[in-house]
C-alpha cells in the first residue's frame, strides 16, 4: 500500500478510544499551543504532532513546555516529558506565566459529569458533605477552562455522565448559556467541542447549548438521545464522522505503544 493509499484508506478495525483520540487530534490546528492532561488528550496531542500538525506545542501542567515525547507519556510527570522539553518550569509558573497569561490556545478537559452548557463536575456525586461518590477534585481544570483560548472535552456519553443538573460545578463551561460565560469576566471562548463515543457535539452559537453535530459511523441519533440526561438538541444537518484512516490509526498505535 502506498503512503497515499494509507492516508486515504478508511480503517474498519478500531476501538472507541482510538476513534475519540483521532477526532481530538484532528481538532487541533498546526501551531496550536495545547495544555494537555494524561490519557486521551496527551495521546491526541502527540498524534497531531506526528501527523497533520507538526508544530503543535505541548504544555503539561507538570511544568514541561514544548515537550516532544517519542511516545504518549504514562503520567503527567514522566521523566521523558522533562527530558524532551524546551523548558521545564515550576508548577506555579506554568499556571501563572503560561496558562493564566493567555498563552494557551487549546485546553483538554474530561469529567465525571457534564451538563448541556459544558459545565463539568469532577468533585463529587451526591451531596458534597455526604457524598455518594467522592471524585478526585478540581486539579488544573477550573483555570484551564478560563485560561485557554478554547477547550476540547473528551467524555463517554451516558445518562450518568450527560446529566440535566451537575451535583457540583467544578469547572465552568458556557455557564448558564446565551453568553452568560462572558459576563462572568472569564477569558477564552469555552468548550468548542465535546467528543464522545457516540458523536461530536458543539455549542449552539446563540444559546451555547451543546448540539449533536456528527455521529460516528454506525451510531444512531436514538442512541445519542438515550445517552443524554436532557432533551438533546440535534443539528438539522447531522453529519457522519469521518472514520479513522489507516494512516491515522497506524500513527496513533505508534504513539501509544509502550
Amino acid at each position: 500500500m502506498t503512503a497515499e493509499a494509507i492516508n486515504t484508506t478508511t480503517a474498519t478495525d478500531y476501538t472507541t478510544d482510538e476513534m475519540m483520540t483521532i477526532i481530538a487530534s484532528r481538532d487541533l490546528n498546526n501551531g496550536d499551543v495545547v495544555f494537555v492532561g494524561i490519557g486521551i488528550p496527551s495521546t491526541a496531542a502527540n498524534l497531531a504532532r506526528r501527523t497533520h500538525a507538526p508544530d503543535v506545542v505541548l504544555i503539561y501542567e507538570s511544568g514541561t513546555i514544548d515537550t516532544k515525547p517519542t511516545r504518549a507519556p504514562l503520567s503527567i510527570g514522566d521523566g521523558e516529558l522533562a527530558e524532551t522539553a524546551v523548558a521545564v518550569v515550576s508548577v506555579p509558573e506554568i499556571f501563572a506565566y503560561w496558562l493564566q497569561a493567555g498563552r494557551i490556545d487549546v485546553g483538554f478537559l474530561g469529567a465525571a459529569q457534564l451538563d448541556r452548557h459544558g459545565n463539568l463536575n469532577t468533585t463529587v456525586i451526591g451531596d458534597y458533605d455526604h457524598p455518594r461518590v467522592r471524585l478526585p477534585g478540581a486539579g488544573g481544570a477550573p483555570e484551564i477552562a478560563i485560561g485557554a483560548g478554547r477547550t476540547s472535552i473528551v467524555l463517554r456519553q451516558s445518562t450518568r455522565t450527560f446529566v440535566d443538573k451537575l451535583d457540583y460545578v467544578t469547572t465552568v463551561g458556557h455557564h448558564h448559556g446565551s453568553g452568560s460565560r462572558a459576563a462572568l469576566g472569564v477569558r477564552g471562548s469555552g468548550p468548542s467541542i465535546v467528543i464522545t463515543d457516540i458523536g461530536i457535539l458543539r455549542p449552539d452559537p446563540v444559546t451555547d447549548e451543546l448540539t449533536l453535530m456528527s455521529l460516528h459511523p454506525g451510531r444512531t441519533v436514538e442512541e445519542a438521545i438515550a445517552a443524554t440526561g436532557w432533551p438533546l438538541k440535534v443539528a438539522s444537518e447531522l453529519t457522519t464522522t469521518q472514520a479513522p484512516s489507516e494512516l491515522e490509526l497506524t500513527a496513533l498505535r505508534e504513539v501509544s505503544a509502550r
Partner: protein
Amino acid sequence: MKNITTLTDAIAEHIHDGDTVALEGFTHLIPFAAGHEIIRQQRRDLRLVRMTPDVIYDQMIGAGCARGLIFSWGGNPGVGSLHRFREAVDVGYPHPLAIEEHSHAGMSVRYTAGASGLPFGTMRGYLGTDITKHTATIRTIECPFTGEPLAAVAALNPDVGIIHAQQADKDGNVGFWGIQGVQKEAILASTRAIVTVEEVVDSFDSRVRVVLPSWVLSAVAVVPRGAHPSYTHGYYDRDNAYYRAWDEISRDRATFADWVRTHILETRDFADHLAMLDSSMAQV
C-alpha cells in the same frame, strides 16, 4: 553539615501531633520515605497539605495520621481512586477527615504567597464554580486599578514542608532537577523544612536546576530511593506496578492494615522497607 541528620531524627524532632504538614513532589520526587517515617512514628491529628494526595497520603490517611486534608486533586494517577482517602471522607474511617479543596492553580498561588511573606495571592480562577461555596480560603477581590473581580486565596504556611531531592552537598545545601513542581515554594512557605536526598555529593551534578541553601532547611537526611514508588530523575524510574497493586491492597481495611503493619510499622526504616519489597515475590 550541621543540618544533615537521619530521617528518624528529623521526623522525631520536627513533626508534632497536630502540625500542618506539606509533603510535595509532583509525580516526580514524592517523599515516600518521609511519609512512611511519619506513619512509623505514629504522628496523629496532622493537617496534611498536598496538591495531589496520591498513594503516599492514602497510606498516611489510612494509617490514622490525619485529621485534615488541603488538596486539589486526590487520586491514584493512571489507576483510579484512593480507597483510604475515600473511606475517610465518605464514612470517617479511621478518622473523620476535614477537607479543604482548591484547584492546582489555587494551591500553587497559596504556596507562592506563603513563600513570599504575603497573606494572600491573587489569580484568575474559580469563577462560575461551586468550589468557593465550600472553601473559606477563597474570596473575591477587586483590582484597585481596573475594578475587575479576581479570586484571592489565603497564603499557605505549613508548620513543616517535606520534599525529596537528588542531592545535598557537604554544606547541607540541596539541589534537584527534572520536573520541579511546587517543591521550592512548599519549603519556603513552611516554618520548618525537611529534605530527603538520594546522596551527598562533593559538588552538585550539572543538571541541578533548583538549589535550596542549607540555612532554610531544618534537616537533610540521606535516603536512597526515598521517593519510591515515585521516581527520581537520573536515579530510578517510577514503579508503575506498585501504583497498580496499591488499588487492591488499599481496597480492603484489613488488607491495608496488614500491609501497613508489615511494610512500615514493623520495618526499622525505609531501607528495611525497600529490602522487604525487593525480596518479596509480589513486590508490594
